[in-house]
């Protein structure tokens, strides 16, 4: 039986949702998985709803789009409200930005609040790396891809100028994931 994990990253345009999806998918390929990734964003470059969906599989994927999320990353309240009910009950996981999202208390899904934007601003001095903080927390909490693969993916797709910052954001995210997971 082919094991499939479906991940949906969501937020608003400009938060780096598409880049985070690209990095996770690329890391999955480095780990030898069959990946199908697709993005959806409004015609506007910034501010509109944005999502990136990645299907991780041990074998060929029939339908390449997400059917139900095993993991949801919600970087905005709007994204959370839209997608929180479309997560697999019991085994599912929602990671949300503590600063932006007030979670609902009636869902049968495990929630992890990550202060991603707060640590990006305070510790990393750049609010634009909250997406990578989420990626780090996700990896630590789920091991959906290996830490080595995600570092390689960052080196491949992030320009040299921002690479150290992104790798640092990844480390911080992984620390947060450990903290909240443990």
């Amino acid at each position: 039986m082919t094991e499939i994990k479906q991940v949906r990253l969501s937020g608003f345009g400009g938060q780096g949702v598409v880049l985070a999806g690209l990095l996770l998918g690329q890391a999955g390929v480095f780990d030898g998985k069959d990946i199908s990734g697709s993005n959806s964003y409004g015609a506007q470059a910034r501010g509109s709803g944005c999502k990136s969906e990645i299907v991780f599989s041990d074998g060929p994927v029939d339908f390449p789009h997400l059917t139900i999320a095993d993991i949801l990353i919600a970087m905005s309240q709007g994204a959370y409200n839209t997608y929180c009910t479309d997560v697999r009950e019991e085994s599912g996981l929602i990671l949300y930005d503590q600063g932006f999202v007030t979670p609902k208390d009636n869902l049968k899904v495990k929630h992890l609040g990550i202060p991603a934007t707060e640590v990006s601003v305070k510790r990393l001095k750049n609010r634009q790396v909250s997406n990578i903080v989420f990626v780090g927390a996700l990896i630590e909490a789920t091991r959906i891809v290996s830490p080595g693969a995600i570092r390689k993916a960052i080196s491949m797709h992030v320009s040299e100028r921002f690479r150290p910052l992104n790798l640092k954001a990844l480390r911080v995210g992984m620390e947060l994931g450990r903290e909240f997971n443990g």
Partner: protein
Amino acid sequence: MPFRWVKSPFPKGTYYFSGNEAAAEGAIAAGCRFYAGYPITPSSELMERMAVRLKEVGGVFIQMEDEIASISAVIGASWAGAKAMTATSGPGFSLMQESIGYAAFTETPGVIVDVQRAGPCTGQATKVGSGDIMQAKWGSHGDYQVIALSPWSSQEMYDLTLRAFNLSEQYRVPAMVMADEAIGHLRETIRVAPKVEVWDRKKKRGTASFDIKEEDGVPPMAAFGEGERLSVTGSTHDAYGFRKTDDPEVHARLVGRINKKILNHKRSIIETEDYLLEDAEIAVIAYGFTARTSLYAVKRLRKEGKNIGMLRLKTLWPFPDERVAEVGKKVNRIMVPEMNLGQVAGEIKKCVPCDVISLTQTNGEVIEPEFLIETLKKI
């Protein structure tokens, strides 16, 4: 033999490419060294990658003023001896039709990737559709043939673009890759082999470029600058390319040959795939992205005990009528889900005696599995 194995210019391995990027790599692997195009969503990433890659492999890249100029430049480059391509979407594909007829009649190899979006007209640029299937076959006037392939994954954007070049060279005919937005923008694991199979157009010094007595009907093709006497015209022409605009025999022979050279080789051009069809009472016939939805739906319904299978059309033109007819004899019903108002369903109805149900969707979205499953449950 004009067929050979060549080392893939892209290192063997696995990659995470979008369909559009993969198509560009497939073209480079096939030996494409000329690209002329005008960017259009949702095909632009293909052009962007060609701009980078052709420079790396020593090819030529030109951004033209529009799609008419783009296809014309491709035809010119092909007659200069290059393997050439362009990519576009519906609005640009419409503009190219006149010159596609010219390419078919002058037997000019060349590849056009059409990343279909929601039409008609400018429609919804970022949304998906597959409304250009009939246009690919009938877009220009007169009787002619083209080859059109239908990829269902990023991997096949690589494989089928490469194959489109090979078929185009082998049969001296425009070949089209009828992708759609969902496939063009889908990122997937791609496996690049160390070696790829490549065809080059036949060449024979001192022979006519526009007629041949041999069975296959494909004459050798000279290029300008090789020292051959060469004239290329979209008017009816004899074996050496001289205009013959009032000789009924020459016209009938030429039109007959450019059609027969494709139709007589249908069996080697056409590719289809069977899924769970052995004992099926219902067959889904699908192509492009919708075949992914269909396979998912068919597998789910099988688990629920429904005798259902799928025939996937990898080649759309020439139409796989023989295989469709075989399937039509064995099943009671055929369902054809499409992101248009039933363009391929109409072709299928011509081939089979059984019921054909056309499931159409033209809202700019892909057909979702649950919708297809529920619809299939009712038949």
